[in-house]
């Protein structure tokens, strides 16, 4: 089992995840975390929650591949990626990326790289619950552009 990737319905604890990244790890002085949460609006529509679908098996393979590329490009220590699936409400955590490194720029760059590629390559799909009912989110062209910048 890949300890670096977890796809789960349950919530996660930022503190616990960072504690694991830092445990017995006195060489890495820098820890960068990204946490993504359900916002209360999207394109001006009021959102009450999300349902997250994914493609089991491909999700893990795709994230492992993104992490491998990040490790080859930057000098990073430990990595953890968590993505939640199922029903989520406003304010709930959706995704966590944590990266440690000796020098801070590596952790910043690798973390943002992982998020940018997760956004365009990892098979997750969001369905929003709004006042107008449920609807699948459209992918954003800006996300493709960001990934292509690396």
């Amino acid at each position, binding site marked *: 089992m890949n300890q670096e990737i977890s796809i789960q319905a349950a919530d996660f604890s930022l503190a616990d995840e960072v504690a694991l990244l830092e445990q017995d790890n006195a060489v890495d002085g820098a820890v960068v975390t990204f946490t993504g949460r359900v916002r209360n609006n999207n394109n001006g529509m009021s959102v009450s929650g999300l349902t997250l679908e994914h493609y089991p098996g491909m999700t893990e393979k795709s994230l492992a591949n993104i992490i491998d590329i990040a490790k080859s490009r930057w000098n990073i220590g430990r990595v953890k990626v968590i*993505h939640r699936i199922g029903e989520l409400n406003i304010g709930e955590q*959706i995704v966590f990326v944590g990266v440690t490194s000796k020098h801070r720029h590596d952790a910043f760059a690798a973390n943002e790289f992982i998020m940018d590629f997760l956004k365009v390559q990892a*098979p997750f*799909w969001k369905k929003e619950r709004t006042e107008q009912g449920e609807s*699948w989110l459209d*992918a954003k062209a800006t996300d493709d552009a960001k990934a292509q910048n690396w």
Partner: protein
Amino acid sequence: MIKVVFFAALREQLDCSELTISSENISTVAELKQQLASKSEQWRTLFDNTSLLSAVNHDMVDGTHPINAGDEVAFFPPVTGG
């Protein structure tokens, strides 16, 4: 046989999450797509969508990618996680 899976909006619009299809006469993802599109007018419309993504055995691929018996092929809209 080829296992074909569908996700998200495409799965709902097809009202189908998975099917199996004979691998005869299918050597690429594009050919599989053609064959699925021929099932009905609705399927044709949905598979004509150029933004549709495809994966073979959990790797994202394009239409020229070869398909062999026993492969798992997936079709889905652009991803929106994170």
